[in-house]
């Protein structure tokens, strides 16, 4: 467990500040909350010598980045600075590190992740980044920007695929239950078919699969043909399949079943025809 240490937390939004401060206090840390750069400057000069400073980038008036530069210039930066930023754009992250920051985390991250970063820095007992390490991180941020730009390019084709699949899925889920009765088995095989196709199109990229799962969940909920818990359970099961090596076989089996058993007799001539092919599934 991380040893309790004092933390200076500079954030102007009372809700976000309240959530993170409460979590830190519940872990036994002493937290000094400040709303602006000016208050933080005054606090550092007069009151506390914190083990860590958590600093919002986008403060009103003097920004967090300018405050960090000020502390560095005055040789008053006596603790590591963990920047808290709403944006993950590369220029902002580079500015955080170039100003003399030691780390950054995104505000929308799960609170457990933010606490992990805080714990990491508290365990370093005030040891800040060396200039060499800071430069290495800056280089990594540059590299990350290039990789992300490439991924975003690939993402465009993925988004197009998802849009097409989504349209089909929405249609299927909004019509099938009315026609066939809402059996989970029918839906599972349909999901097997659709996600099998999605997996193939996503070229087995885990990040794209995860995004597809998110999309799928939203889609399922939007059609309102499943209860929230059913949708979550099905997506969770699919998520587990994604994380094991048998995923491809499982999805292939789903797709094969759909093709052989349901569509084996050719394209259904009508919904009634399709219904008769599916009607026996629940008895299995």
């Amino acid at each position, binding site marked *: 467990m991380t040893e309790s240490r004092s933390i200076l937390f500079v954030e*102007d*939004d*009372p*809700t*976000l500040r*309240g*959530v*993170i401060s*409460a*979590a830190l206090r*519940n*872990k*036994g840390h002493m937290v000094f909350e400040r709303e602006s750069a000016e208050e933080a400057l005054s606090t550092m000069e007069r009151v506390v010598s914190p083990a860590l400073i958590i600093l919002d980038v*986008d403060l*009103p008036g003097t920004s967090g980045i300018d405050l960090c530069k000020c502390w560095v210039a005055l040789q008053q930066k006596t603790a590591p600075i963990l920047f808290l930023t*709403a944006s993950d754009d590369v220029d902002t992250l580079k500015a955080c590190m170039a100003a003399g920051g030691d780390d950054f985390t995104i*505000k*929308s991250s*799960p*609170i*457990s992740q933010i*606490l992990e970063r805080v714990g990491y820095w508290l365990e370093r007992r005030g040891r800040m980044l060396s200039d060499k390490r800071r430069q290495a991180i800056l280089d990594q941020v540059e590299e990350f920007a290039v990789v992300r730009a490439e991924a975003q390019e690939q993402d465009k084709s993925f988004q197009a695929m998802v849009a097409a699949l989504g349209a089909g899925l929405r249609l299927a889920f909004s019509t099938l239950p009315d026609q066939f009765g809402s059996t989970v088995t029918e839906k599972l095989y349909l999901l097997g078919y659709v996600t099998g196709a999605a997996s193939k199109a996503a070229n087995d990229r885990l990040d794209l699969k995860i995004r597809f799962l998110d999309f799928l969940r939203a889609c399922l909920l939007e059609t309102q043909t499943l209860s*929230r818990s059913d949708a979550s359970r099905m997506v969770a099961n699919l998520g587990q399949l994604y994380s094991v090596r048998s995923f491809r076989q499982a999805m292939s089996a789903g797709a094969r079943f759909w093709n052989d058993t349901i569509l084996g007799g050719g394209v259904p001539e009508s919904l009634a025809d399709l219904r008769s092919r599916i009607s026996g599934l629940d008895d299995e």
Partner: protein
Amino acid sequence: MMAGKNPERQPLPYGPAEAGLFDEEIVREVVQFIGDDTYRRLLGEFTHSLPDKLETLEGLVRSPDFRDEAAMRVAHQMKGAAQALGLPRLAHSMSAIASHRQPTSSPDAVTLALAEVRETIGLLLRLPSQTEPRDVP
């Protein structure tokens, strides 16, 4: 040290009717770390601050300076707070407003997002759970 001993069994601060406003996974995690009482207090304070913030935002949207930093700051701040409390619908609406600073943005989309925010605030303000804890199966 966790604030809640058994987060799986913590009652949620809303009933089934309001479930669409909240991300259950986020709410449970936040409650696990800060405790149910603190969550409810922060949610209540945030909710009651929303009408004023919305009024400010609507004023900025109507002004010629809509695309300046001040308007975006309000939208970003509301988005960040909504995310922290597990309110994805509100966060999404605020994100739509904040992302419409580009010259190519559509005023209709901003108007629609503001209407969504108004509706969400109305639902949040009617939450009985801010004062009366309710258990959800």
